[in-house]
């Protein structure tokens, strides 16, 4: 077995050193009735060649995004990842290190986290950020829990433009706690009266921009209304790249900003692992969930970094911790950090513009297709179209033509019959003019049939 260094000779002499006859003696504390006397019924070990062959066969059963005209988004986006990113995150010292509990020999990971936290704060227009959450949806749920700690109120108002997965994860997380969660119905035009739902019991309002349907929301009036009522505004995004073009939520008055950071440095990976971004006002930093990296000095007075404010965390506070999170998304945060470093100010702004331009071009090509209507007045790199017919069948029909043409809303909201003719369509810097034409053709054919 190539991963096991001990030889049979080692095993024999080590058992002798321990003073037992066989390995079974070391399992003496296992009750005899539950000791297995043979192997579990699973295949036996294989060499690299055989395993690689088997895994490649499985991979070949998937249609990968690069092999078809691709317009799928709704919370995970296909972007070009510079080659340097994957090279660097595969450095042994990053890839095979543990959580940086021993700062003297973890300064690499820690300084990267410090830089990442700074990037996230800058991008979201807030003051401080944590060292990552699992994904945007769990970051959203944690933000709600935090808002309840900060305000000591229980009730939550949720926009109908929040990604349904995020809404469901938040609902699940709150399921066994007190308080009322008021979700608004999905509004494809992005118009809803959230301010009217805020009252003296409201802990927070959760609103996404660009929203589920792609509409860009002005959070400023809502921030003012929340603040006036003593509630917090939680701003959510599922496409971090939009922050390169849009007024950041923190600047619009959001108290907590959370979202999905996969677009920077991280591949689609069938939806996991991802990267939850979490940022807020400095005022609330001690109520944040998750790891925080902070600057300090070492015994020689040199600048260095440590995990800090850990008295909020489960390994110290146990049942009184701000969150149960332990392992988070460190390597995904590193990938984000490296991609952001490569882009810099100019690169980020430009790639955001390229995404937006691609979506505008795509909308221009889809609008003339008979039986297709582009709904959005505002959008970043994703918008909603209404089609003549059932969206799920049309998307399936396009897949049959080799085009991955978007996400039918029914996939996310199967109980909403009024959304059954809507498709979310995304374009990024990866999308070519040819692919847009192929989508327009496939869509036209699918709608007509």
């Amino acid at each position, binding site marked *: 077995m190539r991963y096991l260094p001990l030889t049979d000779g080692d095993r024999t002499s080590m058992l002798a050193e321990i003073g*037992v006859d066989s390995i079974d003696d070391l399992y003496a504390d296992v009750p005899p009735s539950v000791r297995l006397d043979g192997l579990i019924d699973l295949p*036996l070990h294989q060499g690299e060649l055989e395993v690689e062959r088997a895994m490649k066969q499985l991979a*070949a059963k998937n249609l990968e995004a690069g092999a078809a005209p691709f317009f799928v988004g709704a919370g995970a986006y296909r972007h070009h990842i510079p080659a340097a990113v994957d090279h*660097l995150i595969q450095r042994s010292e990053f890839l095979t290190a543990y959580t940086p509990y021993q700062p003297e020999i973890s300064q690499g990971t820690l300084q990267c986290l410090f830089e990442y936290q700074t990037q996230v704060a800058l991008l979201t227009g807030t003051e401080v950020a944590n060292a990552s959450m699992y994904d945007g949806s769990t970051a959203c749920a944690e933000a709600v829990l935090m808002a309840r700690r900060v305000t000591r109120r229980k009730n939550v108002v949720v926009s109908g433009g929040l990604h349904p997965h995020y809404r469901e*994860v938040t609902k699940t997380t709150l399921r066994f706690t007190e308080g009322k969660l008021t979700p608004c119905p999905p509004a494809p035009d992005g118009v809803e009266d959230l301010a009217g739902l805020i009252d003296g019991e409201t802990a927070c309002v959760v609103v996404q921009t660009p929203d589920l349907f792609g509409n860009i929301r002005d959070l400023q009036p809502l921030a003012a209304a929340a603040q006036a009522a003593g509630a917090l505004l939680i701003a959510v995004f599922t496409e971090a790249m939009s922050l390169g073009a849009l007024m950041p939520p923190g600047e619009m008055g959001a108290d907590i900003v959370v979202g999905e950071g996969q677009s920077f440095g991280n591949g689609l990976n069938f939806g996991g692992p991802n990267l939850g971004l979490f940022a807020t006002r400095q005022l609330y930093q001690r109520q944040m969930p998750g790891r925080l990296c902070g600057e300090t000095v070492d015994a020689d007075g040199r600048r260095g970094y440590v995990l800090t404010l850990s008295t909020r965390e489960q390994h110290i506070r146990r049942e009184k911790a701000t969150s149960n999170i332990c392992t988070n998304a*460190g390597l995904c945060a590193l990938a984000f950090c490296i991609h952001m470093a490569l882009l810099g100010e100019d690169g*980020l702004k430009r790639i955001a513009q390229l995404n937006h331009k691609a979506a505008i071009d795509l909308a221009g090509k889809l609008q003339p297709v008979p039986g297709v209507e582009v709904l959005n007045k505002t959008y970043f790199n994703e918008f909603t179209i209404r089609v003549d017919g059932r969206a799920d069948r049309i998307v399936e029909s396009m897949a049959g033509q080799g085009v991955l043409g978007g996400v039918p809303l029914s996939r996310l909201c199967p109980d909403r019959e009024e959304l059954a003719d809507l498709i979310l369509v995304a374009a990024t*810097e990866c999308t070519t003019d040819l692919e847009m034409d192929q989508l327009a053709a496939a869509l036209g054919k699918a709608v007509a049939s």
Partner: protein
Amino acid sequence: MNRQGRPTAPGLQAQGANESFNTHTGHRGLEHEEPVIFEQGAEGRCGVDLPDPGAFEDCLGGLNRHNEIGLPGLSEPQVIRHFVRLSRKNYAIDLGIYPLGSCTMKHNPRLNEVIARLPGFANVHPLQPVSTVQGALEVIDMVAHWLRALTGMPGIAMSPKAGAHGELCGLMAIRAALEDRGDARQKVLVPESAHGTNPATAALCGYRVEAIPANVRGRVDLGILRERLDETVAAVMVTNPNTCGLFEDEVIEIAEATHAAGAFFYCDGANFNAIVGRVRPGDLGVDAMHINLHKTFSTPHGGGGPGAGPVVFAKELAPYAALPHVNAVDGDYTLIEHQAPAAEESKSFGRLTAFHGQMGMFVRTLTYMLSHGADGLCKVAEDAVLGANYLLARLKDVMPPSFDGPCMHEALFDDRFLIGTDVTTLDFSKALIDEGFHPMTMYFPLVVHGALLIEPTETESRDSLDEFVVALRGLVADAQSGNTARFAGAPYLSPRRRLDETAAARAPVLRWSPPATPEAAE
């Protein structure tokens, strides 16, 4: 000694030599000082080449970004150098033994990394039509099958993103099942040796947490557990093997007592590496258990994740598992993402994450499983246990173990061997850094004084274990012979010396800020 007659062995003298002169750059040989990336940028420089989008009319509704973001501009070579230099300030399993108890820092096979990057896995979107992702669903189903077979438990939830997330999944299923039978219970019993995530998770599920003390043998005190078990207890959460590195030899009695009280038995599977292939938790009476794929199944820790924490369930809890589920019928895979309105068989408590779980980790895990097979996984457990007991045997005359008998995959010591010295567990562990090792887990579990918990894993060679023993025995001798100068304030030979954590927490600096300029100060 080298040719100049200076000592080459690490120690205080070498440290003295290091401090005897300052370099002009601040670098020390291959040890480079590296500024924060924000201190290295230049306007107009960029590490990617992107086409000019040209002029166009935007559709952002007037909500454009007006202000500068504040990101530095760097070229690719600068970015590469920055992160490579930073990487060299990290310890890693690829550099040496990483003996963190209850963390299972084993070798991460590189085949796993190659396979996870196949475009057919890495470049697939979670919301593509199911007909175009049959291979991805098959991977999830295969990992689920292996995990069910290895644990002897019929139900599974694959989506939890890490161990603590798995605990949440397990406890939520338990609470949903209890509520379904109209049984409101208020508390969860957790041994005092448990990981902090256990009580934190129970609290998140709305439960009160009650600690169960350990007995003199380092196991759950069965007598006290029985006294505390009543109709108010929803679940008992036990880590087995436990964090003292011991198998809970009364685990069957624990399960029976728990079930007799109408409660569920949750097992924290963080230490599954000790028993994989040799003992099935389902046979022990476990009702739910999360499995850290980033521990037992070798997916890399990545400096703090991503992990993955699928949860296996006994039959009674299986219907309550988190969404989504993968269903397989004659090689045709479907994905159940939503609760069917009237489906009796599914009573899922809901969704725990966007999408379907840590696919990237599933691919690595399956690669690892196929590489080892049933036979290899059994050997994994055996060699892990053998390595830990070998360390115990080689150390016990100078570092008395906290409990008698063989250990499982990790060995627990306390600070009795440091009594009478002025060396603490912390100093002792930090001195290991100067010897070239990552310290063991210290001050955990809380059931012994000044704990030192050592988990070598099965991927350490005998030579590696022996070298670690030499370091530990040498340090014990130093401490006990009064040669303690090297301990106070250790480490001396690391990229940074001990860091001021108190100052970091008192006035937290969580982000870089530009130095104040005279204008800004006005």
